[in-house]
Every structure is written in C-alpha cells, then in structure tokens.
C-alpha cells in the first residue's frame, strides 16, 4: 500500500499542476465528486490487495466490481464535465 499511496500522491500532484498551469476552471462540486472517487478508488485498491493476503482471490476481484466501478464513475464524471466546459469556453 505504501507504493500505491506514493503513486496516488504523484498522480494527484501532476493533475493539480496541470490544472493550475493550463488555467483550467474546476467547479467546487467537481472537486467534491473527484475527491469521493479518489477515496473510493484508494479504498478499492486497499481491499483488492488485502483480499489476496486474506486468501480470498475471488473476493478481491469482486471488490473491483463493487467498489472500483463506482469509483471510476465518480472520477470520470467531474473530469468530463470540466473538460467539456473548458473546451466550450475555449471555443
């Protein structure tokens, strides 16, 4: 989980830098949705990896379905919203 956390922090730092550098406007609720998605994603990864250490491989894969899918939806929706609004604004 240490490396997962490290990777997550790097991705987040890159994302925020890109947003600031490119002056992309992000609404507060988009941040909230993204934060929920990110927490859910971390929770998914933790449960996924730990289920293998609990000797429950099938459970591990089902975590991807049960928690991972909603996590992705929460992550993708604000990104799509922000991208669409910014590209409309740019046009």
């Amino acid at each position, binding site marked *: 989980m240490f490396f997962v956390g490290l990777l997550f922090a790097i991705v987040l730092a890159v994302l925020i830098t890109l947003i600031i550098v490119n002056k992309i406007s992000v609404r507060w609720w988009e941040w909230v949705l993204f934060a929920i998605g990110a927490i859910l994603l971390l929770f998914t990864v*933790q449960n996924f990896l730990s289920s293998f*250490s*609990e000797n*429950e491989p099938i*459970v591990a894969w089902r*975590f991807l379905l049960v928690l991972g899918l909603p996590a992705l939806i929460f992550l993708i929706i604000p990104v799509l919203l922000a991208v669409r609004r910014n590209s409309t604004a740019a046009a």
Partner: protein
Amino acid sequence: MSQFHSTLSRREFMKALGIGAGALAGAAAVAPAFQDLDELTASAKKSSDHPWWVKARDFGSLTTEVDWTVLKGHLADGSYNDSRSDSSASTDYSSRVNEWLADGRAKKIPGRSNRDQAAKSAIGTPSITWTWPMAANSNAAQKWEGTPEDNFQTLRSFAHYCGSPNCGALVIDDKMERFVTKALEWGTTSSAYEVVGSGNSATIKFSGNMKYVFTATILQNYTHKSYENTKDDSTGRAGFSMPLGDVSRQRAYADIAMFEFWMQRFITTLGYNCYLQGGSPNGSGPGGRVNIPYGLFSGLGEQGRTGHVMSPTNGIIVRKTSFFITDMPLAPTPPIDFGGTKFCESCMRCAEMCPSTACDDRKKRDTFDAPFPGGRPGYNGWRVHWWKCTGIGAPNTCGTCHGLCPFNHENDALIHPFVRASAAITPLFNGFYATMDRFMNYGAAKTEKELNDWWYRDFKSYKADAIFGQGSFQSML
C-alpha cells in the same frame, strides 16, 4: 492421540447447545463471601482488548436476556448435556461420509486424499498429565502480589504470549455458580480446595476465596477452516466436511491443551491455587464445565445464532473460552455489546448452510423456553436443535456454522473493520452487509484446484500458518 482429546472436543462442542450447564451446586448457604465485589466491579469497568466501537455493558447484563428465575445449570433430568441424537440420521450420514472419504482416498481427490486425511488425523492433542485442581506454589519468596487490576493484566499479558487474543475475568456468585457441574461447590471447606471421592461421583469443594475466574479466548484458524467448506448442490446447503480444512479444528484443540497447561502452571507458580475447568478431580469422572456463559459474562463476546461466543473481532471462529478458577484476586471485565446479536437477526449465514437444519433459523429471538430438544429454558436466545446436529456426527463431520460468520473475517481488508464499526453503531445496514457477504463469495467451497494448491502454497505470502517464534512479524517480503 490421547483419549482426552476426543472427549474434550465433543464435550466442548456440546456446550454450544445452551447458555447454561452444570449444577445449581448447593444453595445460597454455601455461596462465597462477596462483600468486596462491588468495590471490584466499580474499579474495573475497563474491558478487554476490544476495538473502540465495542460498548461495555453493566456487569451481569448480556445482550441475551436471562431469566434467572428459570435458568438452571442442568437439564430437567439433572444431566449436564443431552447426549441423545437422531441416531437413524447418524448411521445413514456417517456411512455416506465414509463412502465419500474412501472415494477421496482411492481417487486422490484434493481435500480428501490420503495426505489430507492424514493431516487431519495427525494433528492431535499431545498426552498431558492433567492436574485439574493445582495447589499454589508454597514458596512465599516467589509469590506475586498485585492489585486485582494488575493481576489481571499480568495474566492477560502471559495469556497473549501463550496464544490468546483476548481475556476477561469474572467473580463467582450464586448466578455464575450455575454454569459449572454439581461436582464443584463453593464455601464448604476452609482449605482452598478439597477433592472428595473419585471418578464420576467426585466433587471438588472450594473455599470462598476461590471465586475469581480468568477467561481466555482461543481461536480456530479461520483461513485454514475455509478449506473445510463444501456445498451439496441437491440441498443448497453445506456438504460433508473437507478433511483438509478440518485440520484447523484439530489444531485448535491441541492449542487449547497447551495453552491451558501453561496458564494453570503460571497461576500456581505465582502462588495461587488454580482449578482448570474441563476435567474431573481424579483424571476421569464428572467432566465438562460449560465455557460459553463465562465468555459472555466476562465480555469476550455476545452470543451468536449458533449459541457460541461471538467475538467482535473474530466472530464465531472462537473454538473455546478457556477458564481458570483461582484465589488470585482479579478485576472483572464487563459484558459487551458490539451489535452482534442484532446483526444475527438479519444475517442467517450460518443457519442457511447448516446441513442438518439444526441451526436456529428463527429471525428474532422470541422465547425464553427451549424450543428444541436438548436445550435449556431461561434465556431469550437462539439455540441449536441438538439432536439434529449430533445426529449427523458433528463436530467430527460438521463445523459449517463456525466458518461462515461475517464477523470471522481477518482485518487486512479495511472493509471489515468498517462493517464491524458500522454494525455496532446502527443495525440499519446489517441485512445489506449479510447479502454482500454472500455475493462476495466469502465462505464458498474451495475448488479442487484450490484444495490441491494448498499443498504448494507460497509460504511467503500465505499468512495463515502459525509459525513458532515469529510473532506477527512478516516472514520475508
């Protein structure tokens, strides 16, 4: 393998039947002196090593309601356990099990091949020369004297070293006396204890000072037990118990024997008398004393649907509450509430897979009577239909219910403490959690490949083997 092993296994298992057993053991006239109980209970509200979401209750108050005017330690006929079973079912079931095992041997079927069956029969309890009541070390220079709290901490610390995850303590009073057999009596002798008679009719008389009970949870290996699960597609319930996984039950009894052997010697070496429950004064005789109520009243868990102690962190994979009666003053620990019995109302994981339909499937507890044969009236809880359960040869041929509880799960995945804490706070999501437990595949029967792969598991990543001397450090990453 010692004779003791098989006797103990069955006896302990039988205790799951009801909350109480044993004898009323005399009348109030022989009750020990409890004038300092209030002081003790007031000073020791601190509970055992439970997580933050586990609430301490008042002393003597369980989440299973007890009617003390009705509850007796023994059955209506005066016996301690109802040893009858549905013998017609037993004969049929055991002959089918034997055929199934023979098939496994002949065809080398994973999980029940010769090596699997050998593993099960190899793990037995070492022969130990038991001394049920053991005298205190008389060397005054070696005596340990502390406050009741410190004494409890001393025993708890040693017990953890010896393999118990959680311990408790209680003080014998006229209610707690009901949970031991007629063979034990308090307040009838001036010496710490006195053994009267021999064999089945032997009794042990204790002085009023022998009123402290130290309790300790001993677990069965949950991960390994999952290799026992099978499914009978014709009934949708569990099939025969897979020998490879049943090794974990055998192992638990061996662990219990060593644990109890060490603990009793520790207590007596510290300078206190100690009676180890489980046997007779003379090595054979009246035998069993119930362990479940002492686990409940000392706060090691709540009573689950199967009648067992259900621990907040280990569910019903608790194999036994070991207990030790001593004159070492111990601060008692209170009963607990972690939403466990409430969870059982919406769960049914154990009952729905019970192959003999012995496990109670009433949704809610609704009677203080014993609705099934072999049960005891006097508490509003779930009970096992004992004749059906032993009728299929349990515990040797079944232990399904023990392995299916959602509270059993290891705590590596964060979802488990999350569910546990949430169930303790509100019962609102209990039904959903139980449904998800099924959906996620917990407690499913292992495939032949998985059963075979156990013999070739990666020792570095498989965390369920208990390695002597390792503690909980990782072996090697």
